[in-house]
């Protein structure tokens, strides 16, 4: 199969790889770029485990062809924060037991990140609606919602303090 050059910005870095056009973005990230944070759960765009941020939007990367993503700016869980600069969502998920097996967590946090950009002070109902593209089998969502609400508070407090 003929491959094409795919150029993307992934977690702030320019990357270039050869891939068939049909390859799914999730496979390009995981197999070609060794970015294994986003996971494959359902493959029919229902579970959100593969969620990445693409050009400022939460996207299910199992339903995006490599060719479509050519030129895109992609952020995965790895780009949100690491050991030296944890994202507040990462901290709050840990603080409020917002995860168990951890398989949905990268997609969940990546989605929550974009959600809070758009709605920095959500109600619990808004969190539940805004997170409805991500399935979790372990937590029953209650502590995920709690973690996101707590992260929103922390982020808002930090913003106020900075002003």
């Amino acid at each position: 199969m003929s491959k094409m050059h795919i150029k993307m910005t992934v977690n702030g870095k320019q990357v270039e790889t050869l891939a068939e056009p049909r390859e799914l973005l999730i496979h390009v990230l995981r197999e070609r770029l060794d970015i294994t944070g986003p996971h494959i759960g359902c493959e029919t765009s229902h579970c959100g485990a593969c969620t990445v941020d693409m050009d400022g939007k939460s996207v299910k990367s199992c339903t995006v062809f490599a060719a479509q993503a050519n030129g895109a700016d992609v952020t995965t869980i790895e780009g949100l924060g690491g050991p030296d600069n944890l994202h507040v969502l990462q901290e709050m998920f840990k603080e409020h037991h917002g995860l168990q097996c951890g398989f949905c967590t990268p997609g969940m946090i990546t989605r929550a990140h974009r959600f809070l950009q758009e709605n920095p002070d959500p109600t619990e109902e808004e969190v539940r609606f805004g997170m409805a593209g991500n399935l979790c089998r372990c937590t029953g969502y209650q502590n995920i919602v709690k973690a996101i609400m707590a992260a929103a508070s922390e982020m808002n407090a930090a913003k106020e303090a900075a002003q």
Partner: protein
Amino acid sequence: MIPGTFEYYRPSDLSEAIKLLTTHGDDARVMAGGHSLIPMMKLRMADIPHLVDLQDIDALRGIEVDGDAVRIGAMVTQHELIADEALFKAAPIIREAALQIADPQVRYVGTVGGNVANGDPGNDMPGLMQCLDAVFSVHGPDGERDIPAREFYEAAYFTAREDDEVLTAVSFKPQSGGYAYEKQKRKIGDYATAASAVLIAKDGATCSSASIAMTNLSDTPIYSQAASDALIGSDLGPDAVSAAVDAALGEIDPAEDGRGPVEFKKHVAGVILRRAIERAVSRA
């Protein structure tokens, strides 16, 4: 779930896209957000040797609201529909409906054009556009033509669009009066068990105009002129509403699936439509 191979094209203007469709005929398909098409390709239920990605065609983007006309480019996403304040003022039913489509991630990517053009009876926008009496603009090798939404759908996945045409925009007049988009579904992310779009305007206590369309209750969306007529000129009281519901139910032909048997769907269609009418009336 791995899709088959294809040649990929990303034209930067419409004529290039149309040329690709003309060249490859049946073997080519255009793709907008891809969230209907890609799962079908992954399940190998759609085999598309030549895939034409429309994302770089700027002419397909943008929402224009001016006085008595609304034009939405085919590549406008559900997310953009929801966020657009001018559109909300001109046609609030669109936000109400779009929020009930799929889930946040899918709404970022799913487009108006994709939703109306592929002819999936489960999609919400076709019925909504019929309710709004929208017109679809399609471009082909011979230029542009307009097709009323109410004449666009022929059967499941069969529409009035020719294979070498691209749906470029939907246009309609701003709505006035009351509206409701009512949808029953099993969960977020599901298609409708039954859904209904209703627009109602009143002149005093009398219904001056009404438009009723239904989703996923036939192999095409159902615009019911008879149901609309049953309301127009009425006092929108219980008898008129029942007459409208009965008229609409006479036009649907739901199929059994995981959401339930035909009898259930017909019943629910009536309930959902009645609720939509009542809510639209309350807002009129």
